[in-house]
């Protein structure tokens, strides 16, 4: 067991567990198997792992909330200086919130949606006698202020859904701080947030540890954890595979799985340092070399294979696109133009609500713009009736965000692909299907499987195969990797990049993640509030962002210390004043797409 035995004194630990094992009846293997960890005052310990690694179950077991059916055992479990192995419900209740408080992922659902945030915070405060009935109001306001919520008096009376993602996450943190617990356990506290807000919340959590509080940070995201953690434990399939001081683990990982996770952090590939070939590939075999490239030649256009002469030819073009939704007339798109050249990869980056998904749907001819138009090869694409567009649809294909929803659950993979291969005989269809699967790095025997029998990464590969089947010239990818685990993310990004180079298909790549965009695109549009604020080469924009909003966005990209040698330089905000005000007010966005 590697975890706790790092020679630190155990006496002052806020929580200390050795040999934690959690199993659920009916599960073949324990969810947590032999995990040991401890958190000291003022220390931030991070528990990192992909989905299903057991990190959340570990956290919940520390406050006796692993679930009614869970079997929990440990050689040692010390909470607030007391042996907690024999705790009953009553004792656990006195510990929860008072000694260890939890912050969960999405405050929209982690706070009771039917109660005001003030009521939630007050409940937490009064429960442990932190305040009497008279002092509650002032205490709530004080907590909200400390969590960096502006206008706490007004926010107190609001409901979670009325607050922005960042503000309600702060309110959730305030409720966790209500009884002044010495240890905070934060389970994916920033995963549901946009990049800029994520950076702010991480800074807030960092300030909490500076004041002497312990923090156990649970995340799938090494880059996010790197900003705060003193020590990191990497979990996989219920066990800790590597642990150690953050500095060492991030710069000099010993376990191949840790190395793989680090490599999978978007933005590390190709640009920073040479990426070693991933050692811990999934079970999916690498695509066979002799796999024939997809026939990407659409009907009626002469194309003679990938060549430089085509690069300048525009395939898909959007002109001054405008689209409003709802009775309020909210502008999802406000005069957006773009050009996508043959074989090019164009990134569209924006946070939630920026209009980037609407742009994808307009480009696909799924949504008709209110004004402006989309042209395919210079001919009208968005304007014609669906009936007239249908014959040409093969040219523009789609990879959706959620691989779990993108295939009919009743269909086999063969039928999913078959739908994209009309007019072929049964045998030819199967052959073509197998070929497509090979091309996206999947074995042909998956053809008879149904979606729920596949992993997320496999499903997304199937979706990509389906999109490639008609031989498209444009692939619109809407957040194609955001629902996937980091290691799978990297694989899918590499796949898309390889397919583009092999088949000459152009990518319109829509994402919220600047780091992802740097992996696959050459040019990028930055969108905000339905407009393009900046456009240019990906590298240029990432290194010398022009627009203030872009600068903020670029600054919020979480970097690993390997690429930014001084950790202080990477963890933004080290030199900034503590953030307690509202989200910085952006400067009026530029209109149009001036570069």
């Amino acid at each position: 067991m590697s975890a706790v035995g790092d020679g630190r004194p155990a006496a002052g630990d806020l929580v200390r567990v050795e040999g934690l094992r959690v199993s659920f009846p009916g599960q073949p293997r324990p969810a947590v198997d032999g995990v040991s960890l401890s958190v000291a005052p003022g220390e931030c310990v991070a528990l990192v792992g992909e989905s299903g690694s057991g990190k959340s179950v570990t956290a919940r077991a520390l406050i006796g909330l692993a679930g009614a059916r869970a079997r929990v055992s440990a050689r040692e479990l010390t909470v607030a200086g007391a042996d907690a192995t024999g705790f009953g419900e009553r004792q656990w209740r006195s510990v929860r919130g008072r000694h260890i408080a939890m912050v969960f992922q999405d405050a929209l659902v982690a706070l009771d949606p039917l109660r005001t945030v003030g009521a939630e915070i007050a409940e937490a405060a009064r429960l442990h006698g932190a305040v009497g009935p008279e002092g509650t109001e002032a205490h709530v306001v004080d907590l909200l202020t400390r969590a960096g919520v502006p206008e706490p008096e007004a926010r107190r009376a609001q409901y979670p859904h009325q607050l922005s993602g960042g503000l309600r996450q702060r309110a959730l943190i305030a409720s966790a701080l209500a009884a002044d617990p010495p240890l905070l356990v934060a389970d994916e506290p920033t995963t549901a947030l946009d990049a800029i807000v994520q950076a702010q919340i991480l800074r807030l959590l960092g300030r909490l540890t500076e004041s002497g509080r312990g923090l156990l940070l649970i995340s799938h995201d090494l880059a996010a954890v790197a900003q705060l953690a003193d020590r990191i434990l990497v979990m996989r399939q219920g066990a800790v595979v590597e642990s150690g001081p953050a500095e060492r683990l991030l710069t000099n990982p010993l376990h191949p799985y840790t190395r793989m996770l680090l490599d999978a952090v978007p933005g590390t590939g190709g640009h920073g340092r040479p990426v070693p070939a991933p050692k811990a590939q999934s079970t999916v075999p690498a695509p066979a070399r002799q796999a024939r490239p997809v026939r990407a030649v659409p009907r009626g256009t002469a194309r003679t294979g990938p060549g430089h002469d085509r690069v300048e030819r525009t395939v898909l073009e959007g002109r001054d696109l405008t689209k409003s939704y709802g009775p309020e007339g909210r502008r999802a798109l406000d005069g957006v133009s773009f050009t996508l050249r043959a074989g090019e990869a164009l990134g569209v980056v924006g946070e939630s609500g920026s209009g980037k998904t609407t742009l994808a749907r307009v480009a696909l001819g799924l949504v008709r713009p209110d004004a402006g138009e989309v042209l395919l090869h210079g001919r009208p694409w968005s304007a014609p009736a669906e009936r007239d567009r249908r014959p040409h649809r093969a040219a523009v294909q789609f990879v959706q965000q959620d691989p779990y929803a993108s295939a009919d659950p009743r269909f086999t993979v063969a039928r999913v692909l078959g739908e994209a291969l009309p007019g072929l005989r049964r045998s030819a269809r199967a052959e073509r299907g197998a070929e497509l699967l090979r091309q996206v790095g999947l074995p042909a025997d998956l053809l008879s499987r149904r979606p729920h029998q596949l992993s997320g990464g496999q499903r997304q590969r199937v979706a990509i195969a389906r999109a490639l089947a008609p031989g498209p010239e444009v692939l619109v990818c809407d957040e194609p990797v955001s629902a996937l685990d980091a290691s799978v993310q990297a694989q899918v990004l590499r796949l898309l990049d390889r397919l583009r180079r092999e088949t000459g298909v152009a990518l319109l790549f829509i994402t919220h993640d600047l780091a992802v965009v740097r992996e696959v695109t050459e040019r990028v549009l930055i969108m905000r509030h339905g407009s393009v604020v900046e456009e240019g080469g990906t590298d240029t924009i990432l290194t010398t962002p022009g627009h203030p909003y872009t600068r903020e966005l670029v600054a919020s990209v979480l970097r690993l210390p390997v690429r930014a040698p001084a950790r202080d330089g990477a963890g933004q905000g080290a030199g900034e004043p503590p953030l307690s005000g509202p989200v910085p007010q952006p400067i009026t966005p530029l209109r149009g797409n001036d570069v």
Partner: protein
Amino acid sequence: MRASVPGLPPWARFAARRAVAGVAVVWGTVTVTFFAIHLAPGDIVDGLIGPGAAATPELRRQIAAEAGLDQPLLVQYGQELRQLASGDFGWSYQLGQPIGRLLGSQVWPTVQLAVSALATALVLAVLAATLTAGRGRAVRGAAALTELLAVSMPSFWLGIILLTALSYRLHVFPSIGAGGPASLVLPTLSLALPLAGLLAQVIRHELETADGRPFVLTARARGLGERALLLRHTLRHALLPLTTLAGFVLGGLFGGAVLVENIFTRPGLGRVLASAVGSRDLPVVTALVVLSSAVFVIVNTLVDLLHPLIDPRLREGGAA
């Protein structure tokens, strides 16, 4: 929020919209009923004359003219709407008295029965659900089985069982009529038990799904006890689907009342309806259908207005 009607707060606009929609549904009900009756196979005059009686063609014509049936359909429709709008339900063919008075004399026993059954069902359901939700397998299995039996039992059969056992055998309760509170007990139980089974299922389901929600985990993680969790958080969430069932419940209560009043030979609207259907006394049927659909719509509208009070997420702009 940009208001389309200046000066009106969102909830008022929402309420107004719901009220208009409700009136439209009642009007639709009247229309459907009217045209169904007049376009259905069979002559309405037969209903007027009554079963078994023969009439000469002249007499038939005379009867039709008296009832206004010789007018064009749309004229009759307009007349019907005018009458209903002024609260006039017309005359019963069979009983020869104004329907308004007939219903007025029968409405009270039915309301009494429905209200007492509803209250009983609610109390039983909430008790059963809160006591068994999240308990061990044996407790929940027993509760689920009881609920299943209660839901599956037709109220008329339950009534018969109760009558046989408690009234005829043990003489605990009077068997028939509407004489005082004691006579209300058995009909109430026959009506309430199946309803309680349904409601208990819904509440328990809500309580148990709420158990897996993140905010419940948060509340537990801050040290909240199970009872406080139930009272402050989960029960309120269970209230939402419960109120939406109000329409179902109302329909079930009225449908059940028709049968239970018959079994227990209690006076009430249910018995009026059953005998009117039996004798094809169409004006009475029409009046009862329109009346109950109006009540139905009013209750559903109230529920819609109540929802935003329970769930703040529905407040802004009202539900679309």
